[in-house]
């Protein structure tokens, strides 16, 4: 199976949100070991997000809204509510992607689903705090008013697609604020998270049913 790098990068967006939330409850970790320890405490996450896409040809950013859910060990729902509805579900080893068509969600049977499984393998690793184990990125930490984790691709196949990824975390609240995927000087995607809830029971149907 040929795996286009593209899908790996799409998944990075999801990956990053999952990466940062496990850091959430104590004074923020300043080391990988601390992050790993915090990550081990997280059993579930739910949050909403606003994604703004900035492009040179766009007079104003394209805004998308969505929600996501995670339940340990590997259940996952990443859903866009508008303007373009789509859902990725992962549960008990099965991954499905749905897109909106004709007034309902229909399964996306393109190759993207299979490649998402590879992404989810990475997600699992990151959920366990092993976000430094991805050889495609070099991670650096910077502590100021906020904490920033900067991921720089080392894989040349990403050149021209992702320049770097910056994750900003509020120091006091110890919660993620934004994830910024920078493609070029003028093009980037920023995801702002809100309403983050950890370790609250999530019905299994969330990871199975599209509606």
């Amino acid at each position, binding site marked *: 199976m040929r795996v286009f790098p593209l899908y790996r990068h799409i998944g990075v967006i999801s990956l990053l949100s999952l990466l940062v939330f496990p850091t959430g409850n104590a004074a923020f970790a300043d080391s990988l070991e601390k992050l790993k320890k915090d990550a081990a405490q997280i059993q579930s996450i739910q949050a909403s997000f606003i994604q703004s*896409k900035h492009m040179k*040809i766009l007079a104003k950013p394209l805004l998308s809204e969505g929600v996501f859910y995670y339940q340990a060990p590997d259940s996952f729902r990443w859903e866009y509510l508008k303007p373009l509805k789509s859902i990725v579900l992962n549960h008990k080893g099965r991954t499905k992607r749905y897109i909106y*068509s004709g007034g309902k969600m229909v399964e996306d049977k*393109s190759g993207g689903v299979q490649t998402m499984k590879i992404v989810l393998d990475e997600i699992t690793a990151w959920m366990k705090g092993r976000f430094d184990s991805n050889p495609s990125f070099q991670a650096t930490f910077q502590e100021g008013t906020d904490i920033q984790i900067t991921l720089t691709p080392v894989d040349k196949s990403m050149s021209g697609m992702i320049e770097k990824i910056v994750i900003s975390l509020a120091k006091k609240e110890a919660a993620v604020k934004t994830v910024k995927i920078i493609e070029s000087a003028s093009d980037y995607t920023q995801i702002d998270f809100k309403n983050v809830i950890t370790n609250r029971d999530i019905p299994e149907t969330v990871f199975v049913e599209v509606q």
Partner: protein
Amino acid sequence: MPPVKTPSVLTENLSCPHPFLREKTSFVHAIEVHAAGKIRSAVIGVTVADPLARSLSCAIVTAEGMVLFEAEEMGGLLNVRRAMPPFDAEDFAGSMLADIKLLFFAPEGTIHKRGVLPDGKFVCRWKELEGDWVDVFGDCNEVIQIKRYSPCGSLKRHVIYDNLAGIYFQSIVLHAKETPTYSLYMTLIEAQSVRN
């Protein structure tokens, strides 16, 4: 290609339907791509089109925000800035921009004939510089259609503009009749005029 009959007294003074842009405009559409009667993908299309300069910039973006394709055409020169598989196919960019020009720019040519189609719809038939024929016709429900034919009269594209709100159509459907056949179902997310 159907014959165009001489307009009746009722239609001879009608002006040609004009679903095309009159000023530089930026669009964002939700686009469903169908092939062989089934949905293949859903993406966001970004278009900036200037009808006076006949210049275009466009991008295809996933819901996740990844740019799959980005290109511009200015002064007749096509510049592909980014093209991920399968949008990196050799003739994809040119074909896509040709479709966008069909949607938003008046045909490059002259009106060859004004008249009535066999079903009674008033039509303006354009003869494009490159030889294609373009029929632009409407009805009383503000639905406008375009059919592009090859120089020998075989149908190549069929476009349906519907649900006009203000000066922008909320729905545009394009059916490509050439192999491989495909259809684009475009729903307007936002539109705004662009001042240079």
